């Protein structure tokens, strides 16, 4: 594997590595989304609540993603900021069916956007309005209203409705993210 990697790197075939932070409240579907983006043979069957964080890797057509899947549980959310510096992109996942905690998601997003390590960087943010298959889910337009996404002026962002269990909407989001990262790099 090491040798092959190096070889493809020499030949200019090696994919660029990017570090992506996957954030959002607990139970929003972060682990499920990342699991779905991995090659099917590497996907795990049971998704259990993440403790602390876990590091996952997957590849898109031209990039190699290293994803920090952060736990969204209240007591772990203060860990997020320690990884902001390393992140080159952010995936923010929202449970569209959890109306009650939409305010909490907004609060955490605002805290993230105001953090000194994020505030002045043109870091791309991809939002997944996840669990769109559920009956009491609100639309991605409504989610972006509730989170006041239109106020984000200095960073490229995009919102996709998704169903992480079926894998719907995920590819669209990853494609957008890949375009953004390449636009920055070249």
């Amino acid at each position, binding site marked *: 594997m090491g040798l092959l990697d190096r070889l493809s790197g020499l030949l200019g075939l090696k994919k660029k590595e990017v570090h992506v932070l996957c954030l959002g*409240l*607990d*139970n929003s579907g972060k682990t499920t989304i990342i699991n779905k983006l991995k090659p099917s043979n590497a996907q795990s069957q049971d998704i259990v609540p993440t403790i602390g964080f876990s590091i996952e890797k997957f590849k898109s057509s031209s990039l190699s993603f290293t994803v920090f899947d952060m736990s969204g549980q*209240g*007591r772990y*959310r*203060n860990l997020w900021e320690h990884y902001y510096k390393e992140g080159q992109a952010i995936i923010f996942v929202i449970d569209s069916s*959890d*109306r*009650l*905690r*939409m*305010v*909490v998601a907004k*609060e*955490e997003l605002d*805290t993230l956007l105001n953090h000194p390590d994020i505030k002045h960087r043109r870091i791309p943010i991809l939002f997944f309005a996840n669990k769109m298959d559920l009956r*009491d889910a609100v639309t991605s337009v409504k989610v972006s209203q*509730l989170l006041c996404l239109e106020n984000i002026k200095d960073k490229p962002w995009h919102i996709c409705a998704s169903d992480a269990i079926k894998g719907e909407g995920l590819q669209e989001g990853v494609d957008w993210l890949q375009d953004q990262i390449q636009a920055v790099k070249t």
Partner: protein
Amino acid sequence: MAAASSSDSDSGRAESNEASSKWLDAHYDPMANIHTFSSCLALADLHGDGEYKLVVGDLGPGGQHPRLKVLKGPTVLTESPLPALPAAAATFLMEQHEPRTPALALASGPCVYVYKNLRPYFKFSLPQLPPNPLEQDLWNQAKEDRIDPLTLKEMLEGIREKAEVPLSVQSLRFLQLELSEMEAFVSQHKSRSIKRQTVITTMTTLKKNLADEDAVSCLVLGTENKELLVLDPEAFTILAKMSLPSVPVFLEVSGQFDVEFRLAAACRNGNVYILRRDSKHPKYCIELSAQPVGLVRVHKVLVVGSTQESLHGFTHKGRKLWTVQMPASILTMNLLEQRSRGLQAVMAGLANGEVRIYHDKALLNVIRTPDAVTSLCFGRYGREDNTLIITTRGGGLIIKILKRTAVFVEAGGVVGPPPAQAMKLSVPRKTRLYVDQTLREREAGTAMHRTFQTDLHLLRLRAARAYVRALESSLNPVSVTAREPLKLHAVVQGLGPTFKLTLHLQNTSAARPILGLLVCFLYNEVLYALPRAFFKVPLLVPGLIYPLETFVESLSDKGISDIIKVLVLREGQSAPLLSAHINMPVSEGLAAA
């Protein structure tokens, strides 16, 4: 999302804005149609899916249509009618084995309805009480049509007035009826034997034998019959029964049933009784001067709210610790526990729409809502810890989530003892002398007192003797003899060598004038010269002051002064009535001039 449904502030700040608030406004529905009290609210993971639900024993608008509601997030998940008004709702673990989903208990009338997985599981009824034999007899007569409904009503009312044993529900309902409805009611009910059952007034849970967060718990019931019952968690048999002097309305328990527990019951007579595991009767009693409106235990402190708009803190032995005054009537109370920061505080919902949060007597936070607050509940809801549920008088539902970063701080001035207590008193330094003196005083106190008393008596004796001597020799300017009560007062005016000497003579008797007095001056004739050294006094009318003037010529130019004696005499008597010594001033003028 409700924009400005409510606001909150810390005790220190008067105004607060969105950014400084500790709470996120998750939901506000003024028309949620929820009418309940804090005791009828419970939060639990009823389905075991990690999503905590809210159980509401709803009285219905105007107490008309009681319902059991279960809410998921902002929406009502299930709703079912209740046979009677709910008294309390509680969630508890019934058994040890998996899956450990808590059961729901709802106390209503004489029954506790137990639900598992939100399906009816068991109904516990309070035991029957013996009916009033007189009442029974009346219904028997009605059954045999020996008395008409109107007589029945009169007789029952008579029993209600004076009987020790209260009437059955059947009789009470009969007494509420209109004349037209009575006949039908009697014919419908007369064949039934009357039952008497008390009703549940309050309910809480008590851990059975483990202190763990998720340990099996017993239900503890308070009844209108002035009793407390502890039920077995699985079999619902009565494990223990305690009696109280009054009807319990709020309960607080701590400890474990099998080991040791403490039970506090706030009662309708305005007292809070504290019971222990082994006590069948109250061990301590807290007498409030008003009715209790809520009871919350914060760590070891019992916090009682009273109808006098105040919160009181007591130890578990009933000793009063503090009192704080509220700006409006307290309508409801509950515990706020922020586990992540180990904070426990009391929330009080007020008639003016405020929710005040206190840690002991320190105000931590004030939330303002648009309506009077009727119930409060804080805990894990949905997937968020630290969620506050508020319902208001108009049926509104407010859900707030405490920010992850929020820290409650006590406002400076309110905490601790009053500032005067910290002020230093200027206590004298403990010098060697001071210590010796103190020791001596302690040892020889009696002797010192005696010596002082002896000296004091000697002094008094000497003063008395001198006074008597003065009286005997009339050496004083006041004569108190019965016949000639007189007062003399002399004034010297001038700088010299000529002085004017004025004697003011007053007859101090009430009515008798004095006649035949003489005034005589005795002086050193080398130093002074007086025109008349001896003269007669005119008649002295009682009360008036007579000025008698004479000039005194100072003869010496050496600056010497002397005493001039004035004697007031009665004609024909050699002993003077009174005398005065006048200290003449030194002449400042020149004698020769």
